[in-house]
């Protein structure tokens, strides 16, 4: 069917995955209220997974729906649908690694899973929106849910502190984002991205509101993607939050911000490319350098992965700066691979910590590979993928982004990317080195006990499979990513942006 938004019903169709997930999330919430039995916790998790599966079906169905024109507030394009896959997969994997954790930590399961569902709804809205205001609402839906998730473990003071820091700074940054939206609204007369693009073409950038608005918007998003120097909250929030939530923040939440950022930059602000190019260039370079260098000296694996996620944000920013189709497709592909890899790595961290916040020091991984060979092997695979080792999805993703950067002749960024990647080998392989090359400390051998939950094994195998598949046979995923960005950047019919 074709949507022209002549009736409100069309909005419901266009937002079907969101609606399904939202209603399902409410269902989980209410189901949790009616059942107070402690034993019910995993069931709520499975229910949430079922809801995600339903949303995935709806998302797949949307491929058969088309929209007339490309200016409506809610986009039904492949870019959005691809992004939705990333969010759904990220959320599902997060829930799967949370099942045992939530039970073990005696968290309130219904609220926990419902919040993840609501945050995922927010991400989907963000990806779908062609309107700055909807982007803002979606981002806030995500953020507010994740503030709560970060502070979710009420018995852990670190969790509360992480939540507070994240909340205060996140709200602070939202203010800048919103102010930027207001200024752009004033300059362009609309918050619709297509309308903004047209207004810019007609000279709206000269009015004095557009450029500062763009700058504030960029800083707001730079915070959301934890780009240097707006990254200060990231390590604290990632370290303190419950580990599955950290996985979710590092993967899906970041992906959502990047998807929205890409659409805004490529569509709405394409006309002021010359103005945002240098800003993002420097932010990207600084993010790669600082993220990677600081990760080298971390001793906690959660903090190390936090800085690693900052560094990966830098690589993704390179794709934004390149601003061509290859880079845009690379961005989507990268987000998918990175999401899967990161959740996989955190799944191991959760398991090593025995469903709690213990043993996050990298030294605790000494000899782990030999004690738990499957986990150790997969963790090594994830680390190699994060480092960008050929044969893994991480390499393909980086290669793709690099290709986009080479086509855009961003040689210096390319050099920085490659050099900082080499630095990253150091800290990723340090963990692998501890796992395989170091003897376990005395007594550690006896603590291995306790079976790894079934769901974690599933997650690990799925993530490992995807990492290998995207590394060795990336064809399908790359085709999908390429098809998903077709037409994204050609916002006015017939005029391809030229830079």
């Amino acid at each position, binding site marked *: 069917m074709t949507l022209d938004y002549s*009736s*409100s*019903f069309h909005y419901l169709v266009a937002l079907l995955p969101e609606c399904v997930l939202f209603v399902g999330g*409410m269902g989980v*919430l*209410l189901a949790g*209220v*009616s059942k107070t039995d402690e034993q019910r916790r995993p069931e709520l998790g499975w229910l949430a997974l079922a809801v995600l599966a339903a949303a995935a079906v709806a998302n797949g169905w949307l491929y058969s729906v088309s929209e007339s024109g490309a200016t409506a507030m809610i986009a039904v394009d492949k870019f959005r649908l691809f992004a939705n896959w990333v969010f759904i997969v990220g959320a599902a994997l997060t829930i799967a690694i949370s099942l045992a954790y939530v039970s073990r930590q005696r968290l309130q399961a219904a609220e926990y899973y419902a919040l993840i569902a609501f945050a995922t709804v927010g991400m989907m809205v963000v990806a779908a929106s062609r309107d700055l205001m909807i982007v803002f609402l979606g981002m806030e839906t995500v953020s507010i849910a994740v503030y709560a998730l970060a502070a979710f473990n009420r018995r852990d003071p670190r969790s509360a502190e992480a939540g507070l820091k994240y909340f205060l700074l996140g709200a602070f940054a939202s203010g800048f984002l919103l102010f930027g939206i207001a200024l752009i609204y004033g300059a362009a007369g609309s918050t619709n991205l297509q309308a903004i693009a047209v207004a810019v073409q007609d000279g709206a950038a000269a009015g004095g509101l557009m450029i500062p608005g763009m700058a504030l918007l960029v800083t707001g998003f730079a915070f959301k993607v934890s780009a240097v120097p707006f990254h200060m909250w990231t390590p604290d929030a990632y370290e303190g939050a419950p580990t599955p939530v950290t996985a979710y923040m590092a993967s899906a939440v970041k992906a959502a911000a990047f998807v929205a950022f890409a659409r805004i930059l490529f569509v709405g602000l394409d006309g002021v490319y010359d103005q945002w190019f240098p800003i993002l260039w420097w932010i990207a370079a600084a993010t790669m350098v600082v993220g990677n260098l600081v990760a080298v000296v971390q001793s906690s694996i959660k903090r190390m992965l936090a800085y690693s996620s900052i560094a990966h944000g830098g690589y993704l920013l390179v794709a934004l700066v390149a601003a061509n189709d290859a880079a845009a497709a690379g961005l989507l592909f990268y987000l998918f691979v990175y999401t899967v890899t990161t959740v996989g790595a955190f799944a191991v961290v959760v398991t090593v910590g025995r469903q709690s916040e213990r043993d996050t020091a990298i030294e605790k991984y000494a000899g782990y590979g030999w004690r738990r060979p499957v986990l150790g092997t997969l963790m090594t695979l994830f680390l190699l993928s994060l480092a960008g080792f050929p044969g893994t999805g991480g390499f393909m993703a980086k290669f793709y982004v690099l290709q986009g950067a080479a086509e855009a002749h961003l040689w210096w960024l390319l050099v920085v990317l490659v050099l900082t990647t080499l630095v990253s080998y150091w800290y990723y392989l340090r963990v692998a080195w501890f796992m395989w090359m170091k003897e376990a400390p005395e007594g550690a051998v006896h603590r291995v006990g306790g079976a790894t939950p079934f769901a974690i094994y599933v997650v690990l195998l799925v993530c490992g499979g995807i990492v290998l598949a995207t590394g060795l046979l990336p064809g399908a995923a790359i085709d999908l990513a390429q098809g998903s960005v077709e037409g994204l950047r050609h916002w006015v019919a017939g005029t391809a942006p030229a830079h």
Partner: protein
Amino acid sequence: MATSYIPLLIILGVSVVNAVGMAVASHVLNPSRPTPQKAMPYESGMIPLGDTRARFSIKFYMVAISFIVFDLEAIFLIPWAVRMRELGWGPFVAVFLFVVVLAVGLAYEWKKGGLEWD
């Protein structure tokens, strides 16, 4: 149009100057010879104990939050209500769904015991 507010501004200015002026003047003109007795909050009363900030029950917070949420509901409903007939069924359904969502929220809060004072 703006001129009609000038008297208001003048009154505002005078009152501010007056208030600040009196406070400052009393500080400046007042001879200050503090003794320990005088420095006490209640010169001849009980010596106060503990924090001046009294603890509020968490329940006030719960009520306040509920109030904000349902208060804000109104700002979305009123513009629609004013033009309900002209807008027709589409927005009606939309508002209906909006209220349903809030109702679910209310049901959740109720079940959780958020509405009970004790």
